[in-house]
């Protein structure tokens, strides 16, 4: 049986994009409304689907649909979701409407509180249709059960994002856009070689993921192919030392695009590590665990330290994300139930937290017209709501217990610490070191908060208006989710856990977590 859920989820935004693109000139408002409507439809569909998701039943992929696409390459249009894919699709579906609302006026020329134009008027229809195309691709990349299809989306996603950064971004936008594209493209091309290699070596004549699991036996081959995939994902994630594109891209992109970039697109990297690197090349994954964990820990600490030194809000947030992605990678490669479940959960929570942070920062910047922290001060006094949301988002960023990001960070660290996969020692040390990040996180967030929100109100800040209804509608849902999942993460974890268990089985890690406190029960 093939279910139509996922194809519909992908078709709807595409159709929406076409409609928006074909709207007559000067119907900007309509374009926005249509986009919002479409994205909300997608959200509703996704939620309905998610609630039908049978959590603990047999086969790996639910809502599967497989059609032949390119028979002579053995490529199928194969989609289906396991727990992790489901939550990530849900994440995208939630973020898009929020981003639409958030970037309502981004394309029609942004004026600061004192009325100076910071970004000129640009084509509104293009921006929003790109957004919808991107949504379709984001859903596709997580839903793909065919390695080739995954790759296609993995690369094709770059283009709409490239245009969103390049033509709607800040002063350095084209540099940032090109850097982003080339970095990712390079990784992607290496991955292409690995993808072909996988096809050739496996000799199965198909790219369907389930049929490729455990096919590659020869360790040397595994290592090469693993490397091909991993480098691409490491660049995407981004992992130290191939991270430098992110701060530029995120800083130059309009806040909305930045949210999707850091919140969703980068997750494809960690998602790919978890599904492809681990399950297709288990031996290589185990062989490379230690070096990768080291890189992850470096990212965690390094990202945090560099973040402290940033003077530009968006760059700062970008670096905090680098630190957070370090945690995710650590969780993925800690090879324990708790850690990997934590990592998967982290992908979602980080989407919400960083999303909120970027958007709040975006609202600040749109009022002041400058991303430089030094240009602010005393916002709390004039715009308490904005300040409040910014603070909560920041606290989520430093993963304050009671907010969603804490649960995942805690699970990753404790899971890594207790992981018995490889003679716990080294992983414990890694977890211990990465725990230092909780201190650094407090420093970079609170210092930024102190310099922007607190203290005497700076002169230009006096003109600030507090959040309007639209902006509240943007931030409130995120904060609600952050707090809600902070106290009750179970729904997400119940969906994630079986998939993680499955993964660990495929990786042939004998993990007590499965035996004792297995996800199922």
């Amino acid at each position, binding site marked *: 049986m093939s279910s139509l859920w996922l194809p519909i989820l992908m078709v709807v935004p595409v159709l929406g994009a076409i409609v928006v693109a074909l709207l007559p000139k000067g119907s900007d408002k309509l374009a926005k409304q249509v986009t919002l409507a479409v994205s909300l439809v997608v959200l509703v569909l996704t939620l309905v689907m998610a609630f039908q998701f049978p959590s603990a039943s047999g086969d790996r992929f639910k809502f599967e649909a497989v059609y032949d*696409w*390119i*028979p*002579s*390459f053995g490529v199928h249009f194969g989609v289906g979701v396991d727990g992790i894919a489901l939550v990530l699709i849900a994440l995208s579906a939630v973020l898009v409407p929020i981003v639409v609302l958030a970037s309502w006026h981004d394309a029609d020329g942004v004026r600061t509180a004192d009325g100076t134009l910071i970004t000129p008027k640009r*084509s509104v229809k*293009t921006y929003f249709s790109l957004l919808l195309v991107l949504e379709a691709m984001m859903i596709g990349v997580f839903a793909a059960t065919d390695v080739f299809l995954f*790759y*296609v*989306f993995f*690369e*094709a996603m*770059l*283009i709409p994002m490239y*245009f969103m950064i*390049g*033509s709607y971004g800040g002063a350095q*936008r*084209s540099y940032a*856009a*090109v850097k982003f*594209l*080339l970095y990712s*493209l*390079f990784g992607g*091309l*290496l991955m*292409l*070689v690995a993808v*072909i*290699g996988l*096809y*050739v*070596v496996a000799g199965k004549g198909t790219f369907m993921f389930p049929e490729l699991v455990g096919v590659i036996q020869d360790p040397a081959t595994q290592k090469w192919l693993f490397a091909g995939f991993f480098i691409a994902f490491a660049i995407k994630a981004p992992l130290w030392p191939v991270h430098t594109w992110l701060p530029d891209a995120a800083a130059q992109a309009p806040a909305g695009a930045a949210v999707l970039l850091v919140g969703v697109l980068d997750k494809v990297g960690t998602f790919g590590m978890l599904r492809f690197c681990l399950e297709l090349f288990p031996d290589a994954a185990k062989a490379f665990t230690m070096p990768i964990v080291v890189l992850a820990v470096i990212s965690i600490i390094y990202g945090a330290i560099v973040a402290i030194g940033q003077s530009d809000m968006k760059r700062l947030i970008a670096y905090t994300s680098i630190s957070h992605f370090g945690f995710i990678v650590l969780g993925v490669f800690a090879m324990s139930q708790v850690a990997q479940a934590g990592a998967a959960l982290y992908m979602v929570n980080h989407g919400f937290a960083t999303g909120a942070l970027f958007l709040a920062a975006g609202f600040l910047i749109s009022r002041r017209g400058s991303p430089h922290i030094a240009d602010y001060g005393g916002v709390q006094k004039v715009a308490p709501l904005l300040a409040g949301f910014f603070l909560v988002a920041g606290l989520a960023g430093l993963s304050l217990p009671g907010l969603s990001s804490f649960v995942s960070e805690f699970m990753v660290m404790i899971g890594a610490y207790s992981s018995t996969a490889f003679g716990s020692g080294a992983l414990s040390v890694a977890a211990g070191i990465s725990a230092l990040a909780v201190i650094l996180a407090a420093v970079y967030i609170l210092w930024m908060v102190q310099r922007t929100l607190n203290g005497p109100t700076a002169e230009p800040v006096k003109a600030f208006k507090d959040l309007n209804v639209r902006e509240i509608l943007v931030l409130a849902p995120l904060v609600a989710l952050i707090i809600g999942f902070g106290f009750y993460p179970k729904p997400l974890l119940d969906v994630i856990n079986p998939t993680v268990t499955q993964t660990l089985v495929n990786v042939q890690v004998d993990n007590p977590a499965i035996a004792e406190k297995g996800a199922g029960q």
Partner: protein
Amino acid sequence: MNGAIEAPTIEYGLLAPLLLVFGAAVIGVLVEAFAPRYLRKSIHVPLTLLSLAGGFALVLVQALRGSLPTTPAAMGAVAVDGPSLFIWGVILVLSFVCVLLINDEGHFVASAAAVPGSADEEEAETAGGGHTEVYPLVLFAVGGMMLFPAAHDLLTMFVGLEVMSLPLYLLCGLARRRRLLSQEASMKYFLLGAFSSAFFLYGMAMIYGYAGTVSLPGINQALSSGVLLDPLLLIGMALLGVGLLFKIGAAPFQAWKPDVYQGAPTPITALMASGTLVAAVGALLRVFWVGLGNLDWDWRPVMWGVAALTMLVGSILAITQTDIKRMLAYSSIAHAGFLLIGVMATFDSPAGNAGSLSAILFYLVVYGFTTVGAFAVVTIVRDPGGEAWHLSRWAGLGKRSPLLAGTFAFFLLAFAGIPLTSGFFGKYAVFTAALGSGAEVGDSLGGWMVGLVVLGVVASAVAAFFYVRVIVLMFFSDAAADGPSIAVPSTGTVAVISVAMLVTVGVGLFPQPVLDLANQAASGLFIR
């Protein structure tokens, strides 16, 4: 030397497309000779288009008839096998499209002989009409392009080579604007072309000396029996290679390409970039797979170096180009490199070879259409002094005419091989073939093929940089004050661009039909 030479048998049916095109060309010449000037164009255009269309129809008829001949036609001079028919079809469609471009006013000089700005040019201008001998020339060139890859012996191949090249030499010199560049291009192309074909010829002589025949299967025969290390053979192979690699513009024989592509009239550039490349690759395959197939353990390593060098030279040098056509020329050099990867992807199993052959054919189709489309766009982005050749003039095009810029951007992405464009599948097919042949047990190169593919992706990453650069110019940077004007494109040009776009998008989304055709054409491999 006994006995009389018996009259040759010619399979007119099989050769019909070829003959039709040549016939039309001859008629074209007669028209030039006898028809009054004001009539000529109105005769030429339908004549040319119809003959090309008819040729295509005939090709289709043969293809649909199914059973392809297993023996060469015309006393073993021409092999009308699957690949030939496929290549003929492609060339005919591409050249048809290019003719539509050529039709546009203002590409060609009124009188090639006239000195620019001289009185008799004025007179020629006022007399009206472009240079109508363009049409028969093009037809001859197309005929040559068809003969070149279908030739079953080296002599026919040489003749085809010349028939293809000579008209092109002339056509390059006929640009209406920037005459000096055009003529210079034509001269360089001519001299170097002749030079390289001399090498080809000498190589042919050596081979003949070794094998005692110039028919490709004959040579193959000789290889399977005779000594393999005869310097005659090796040198001959090398010199043949020079001639062929020169035509596809592989390094270190690529020097002519940028100059000629830049100087030639853009429609002709399009014709060369698509048709000539297709034909030359076809011929290359025939020589090295059919004629020298048994020697591949020797030429593949060398081809490895050529391919690698070509890809790198092409993509690295393109980065710093400022002339759009020149940049596209370098990009086509890089693509020639990718094609060479496919040429090296030989197997022991016929099935494997068929696989890589179809990969190459597929690549040729998608690249051909995309490149024609790209040049077509170039023809309508105008300055007062002709086409807006300098890249800086393209700044902000996306703002002024988003549709055109978008189309061009899409072609560029296809060149770069971004998924969901036809170019991606082309690259993919070739790379797959290469890795496959490398993975084959006991392959003489083995891991080296992987290395080459990695080199290939690195090259395409570098190449992506300059494609992206153009997109940045068009969309992200603000328009130049006196930006280029977009000429209202003729229906012909619009047709060309839309066809190219259609293929690039369509194949990018659903490559299977084209792949089926290629597979079918390649299934029987070449006649041996």
